């Protein structure tokens, strides 16, 4: 079978394999109490920042980027929404609840919905304010300008950027630096990851962003999918190495 001509078959195989692995790890994980996840300092600092914001009466700003829902970039924004959900559950009882910004209409509605669900879960549904989830601009730069205005004017002590961002992320992070707040950022766009590494206090590189749910204890399935990711990654590494060795041997003989 020529795999390069059967990419759809390969895709079905990967998706089905991934699905099976997630189910297996979820079933195995029901009785486990510890997970042995490697330490990612960014998430420890985030948990601390959430606690500090609640204590200090300041708010956290979660920006989920300007990805389109029908593009692959939306996955990074969904991770941002998972983080927002966790933060909302902890911080929505404070005087200064978290605020979410997006550069896409559908993402803004999802952010509002996530915040509303967070309020409902802590039994404070009547305190929910739809203004807390908002669209700040429709082009990347206007979105960044709107987000900067939130940081400067709304008593923000920490910024979490998780979603599809371009170069404009540097402007948001610079505004955060001026306000003296904590910043954590991650994106699916590789050049922007370099910008975030430079401008953010904590940057999530590569797949670290997608581990957000598991590290913030968003549920068993998040941890199970993280373990499935690890297994598939090692399989891919083995396949790449085997392919390289195979090519090298073909050169010799």
């Amino acid at each position: 079978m020529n795999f390069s001509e059967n990419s759809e078959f390969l895709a079905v195989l990967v998706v089905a394999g991934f699905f099976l692995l997630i189910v297996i790890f979820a079933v195995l994980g029901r009785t486990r109490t510890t997970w042995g996840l490697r330490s990612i300092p960014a998430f420890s600092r985030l948990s601390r920042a959430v606690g500090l914001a609640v204590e200090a009466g300041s708010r956290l700003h979660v920006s989920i980027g300007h990805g389109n829902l029908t593009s692959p970039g939306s996955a990074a924004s969904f991770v941002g929404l998972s983080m927002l959900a966790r933060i909302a559950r902890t911080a929505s009882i404070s005087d200064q609840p978290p605020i979410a910004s997006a550069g896409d209409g559908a993402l803004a509605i999802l952010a509002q919905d996530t915040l509303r669900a967070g309020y409902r879960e802590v039994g404070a549904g009547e305190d929910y304010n739809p203004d807390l989830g908002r669209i700040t601009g429709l082009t990347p730069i206007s979105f960044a300008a709107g987000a900067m205005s939130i940081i400067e004017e709304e008593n923000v002590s920490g910024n979490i950027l998780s979603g599809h961002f371009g170069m404009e992320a540097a402007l948001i992070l610079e505004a955060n630096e001026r306000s003296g707040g904590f910043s954590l950022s991650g994106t699916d766009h590789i050049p922007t990851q370099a910008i975030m590494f430079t401008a953010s206090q904590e940057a999530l590189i590569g797949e670290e962003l997608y581990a957000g749910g598991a590290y913030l204890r968003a549920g068993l399935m998040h941890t199970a999918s993280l373990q499935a990711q690890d297994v598939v990654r090692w399989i891919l590494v083995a396949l790449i190495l085997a392919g390289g060795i195979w090519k090298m041997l073909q050169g010799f003989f």
Partner: protein
Amino acid sequence: MNLKIPIISTTIAVTSGLAVLLLYFSPLLIANVDWRTVLLQWATSLGAVALLVGLINLASVHSRRLDDEGPFPVNSLVLMLAMIITFIVVLVFGPTSVGAMFILNYIQIPVETSLIAILAVTLIYASARLVRRKIDTFSIVFLSTGLVILLTTSPLVTDLFPIVGERLQALRAWFTSVPASGGARGILLGIALGTIATGIRILMGADRPYGG
């Protein structure tokens, strides 16, 4: 009633997600219509409606801020004025009219370009701050790579010192084709796996970014 909403939204999300995935692998043509494309077009149309809702939300947030006590929100006033003027011009004269194009070409694009220009300064400043904030192996490798790429891109260095310049250019070629390219592929693989995992969690209804 509160319990029913998550069930309905989860069912709709999971069903439509599975339908799009299945139709991707096995296109269904009924009456010469590609149903995957149709479903994606529906999603795009809903996105446009969501955009309108988002704009109304943006206007309501800033109009409320204008009513609030405390320091006068100049940003909100500018935003509201710009929004109203643009809306009227586009509604009355059309989106490609002289007035609408004037707003785009002589106000929006220059303002955005000036912010992009600030971005260059911001990045240089952020690089300097990186040295102050965290000096570890990754930061040193990151900054020295950036420096080598910058130096070899500049004709000033390569023209003034041709011997050193040639070596630096060879180093740049090696950097971009071996470690940078390998690292980018590794990161891309991680992102792809993370995207698939997120998608599967949503299809299983385990992750509900729609608040359900």
